[in-house]
């Protein structure tokens, strides 16, 4: 077995059991009664162990799952959740950012506009899409396609999976701040339903830049944060070594976000994380989309926009001292 990345040490007992089962299954005498019993026993042990480990993931361990190299990315869900995907490229201004994919898709009886970050799988892909860190043209492409969807009353589905918007010279030159700001501004008023799901990493402005919707959900082991744990540790603890502490302090897991009213729904992942069964993860996502598309389709547009506004308007925790009623 390859050495696991440091943060994934918790997976070791699971992977060991998986390996043992694989070896027994591929052995010549796999059909013999002896091995069948043994395999059955190991499988039970594996299920128990996986549940035990995954029920007790620390926030930092969850970040490692969210970043797992085998975790399904947007392209996996595009092919597994939808009957069809027709990619539409380009922002008509500068280029075609591979860190955000956009296009028409079909799901059940619905036509939708699918938008999502891509992190790539192979080294070549990962470089081509800047590891899922979008440039301004990615956000502008997303907005352009959303406007297109609005024109034809096509609902929008956004898959969020990014470490953050790209921190580079070109991104700053071409106005990454302005691009994200404009998306927040416009998405709050796009006249068609929007469903957003964090499928892995919800990295700050880069995430919320396609994250304003009527429904916002998270896959169970994803995280959604104002800053990466490493970035936070670097600033507040003065060292990236404190990333694990920062991960705990930032309260960015799906459970916490549900409590804060930031997300509406948590989509349960297959036992041992989405990377252990992408098909099952996609199936659950698909069911969630179908349910929400049906529900949102019945809401009159004016009400939809009012509720979308209120959804974000009411987020925040503060004290309001009585006695000083003010009106300007």
């Amino acid at each position, binding site marked *: 077995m390859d050495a696991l*990345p440091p943060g994934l040490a918790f997976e070791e007992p699971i992977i060991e059991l998986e390996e043992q089962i694989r070896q027994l299954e591929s052995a010549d005498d796999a059909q013999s009664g002896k091995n069948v019993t043994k395999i059955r026993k190991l499988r039970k042990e594996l299920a128990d162990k996986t549940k035990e480990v995954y029920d007790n993931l620390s926030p930092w361990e969850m970040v490692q799952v969210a*970043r797992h190299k085998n975790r399904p990315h947007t392209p996996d869900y595009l092919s597994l959740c939808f009957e069809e995907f027709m990619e539409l490229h380009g922002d008509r201004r500068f280029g075609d950012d591979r860190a955000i994919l956009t296009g028409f898709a079909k799901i059940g009886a619905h036509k939708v506009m699918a938008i999502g970050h891509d992190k790539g799988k192979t080294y070549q892909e*990962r470089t081509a899409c800047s*590891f*899922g*860190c979008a440039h301004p043209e990615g956000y502008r492409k997303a907005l352009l396609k959303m406007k297109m969807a609005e024109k034809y009353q096509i609902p929008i589905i956004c898959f969020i999976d990014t*470490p*953050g*918007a790209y*921190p*580079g*010279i070109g*991104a*700053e*030159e071409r*106005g*990454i*701040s*302005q691009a*994200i*700001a*404009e998306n*927040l*501004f416009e998405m*709050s*008023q796009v006249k068609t339903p929007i469903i957003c799901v964090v499928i892995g990493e919800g990295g*700050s*402005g880069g*995430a*919320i*830049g396609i*994250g*304003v919707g009527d429904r916002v959900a998270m896959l169970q082991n994803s995280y*959604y*944060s*104002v*800053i*990466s744990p*490493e*970035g*936070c540790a*670097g*600033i*507040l*603890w003065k060292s990236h070594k404190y990333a694990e*502490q920062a991960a705990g*302090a*930032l309260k960015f897991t799906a459970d916490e976000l549900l409590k*804060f009213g*930031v997300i509406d729904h948590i989509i349960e992942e297959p036992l041992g994380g989405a990377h252990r069964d992408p098909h099952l993860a996609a199936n659950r996502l698909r069911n969630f989309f179908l349910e929400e598309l049906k529900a949102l389709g019945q809401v009159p547009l004016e009400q939809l926009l009012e509720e*979308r506004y209120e959804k*974000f308007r009411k*987020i*925040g*925790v*503060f*004290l309001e*001292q009585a006695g*000083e009623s003010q009106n*300007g």
Partner: protein
Amino acid sequence: MSTLPTNSSGSADAVSASAGAATSETVANGTTPRKKRGIPEGLWLRCPSCRNAIFRKDADKRSKICPECGYHFYVSAPERLEQILDSGTFEEWDANLLPTDPLSFADKKAYADRLKAEQKRTKMTDACVTGGGMIRARRVAIGITDSAFIMGSMGSVVGERLARMIERAGEQNLPLIIVSGSGGGARMHEGILSLMQMAKVSAALARYHSKGGLFISVLTNPTMGGVAASFASLGDVIFAEPEALIGFAGPRTVKATIRLELPEGFQTSEFLLEHGFIDRIVPREGLKSEIARVIDYCGK
């Protein structure tokens, strides 16, 4: 696991802007004592740009601009209000909103303690002040984010005060001015709630915009991260003070990512003007009159 921005630099909405272009007075996130914050006490001060020792009163007379080189020193929110509004016309809104510690956040210091210390030191309750006032006898709504309070970062109170101000400006048909001084972007200590304030304030601006409201955004040193990536970039007209540090990712983050020296003047007001993202660079002494002129052009 991605090897590029995730590990070393991470996302950029909360940034430390201490390595800024012309910003030697900017200090990181309130954990260190602020020796160089604004104009120090005493008769003389040293300009961080031209290094001249200048007479404090000379800078004060010029809205805290260096008389030798034009460097713009830090000004606090109350001073800023005095500079922009007609004297004595400011009435504060929503001062009764106070920050709490929803995450029970603690780094080296507990956020609850940090808040108390910052409130005591700055005499502010949080990083922004909002209210109504007059500019050349026209009523406006005005908000200031003050970089002295936890780097001017936006948490729940900043987001809520701004959103309420924008809604009120919409109801009363007032022109809206927000002067940003926020090196800290979205405030880390309130986690995801801070990130969501970006969407909340931007949505309020979208509504205000569809009612025909005029929004003048003024960017001052520094305006970074989640503040730059939300309301600060959404003005109908965007002004910036000269040589302010303005951008999304902190310069150190960018440098760590690309592993190259940053070009001269990167992420300054002048850089943004050159690339088409702001309307005008306005020296502080002319700010009030330029705001008044825009209101005049757009007034109904």
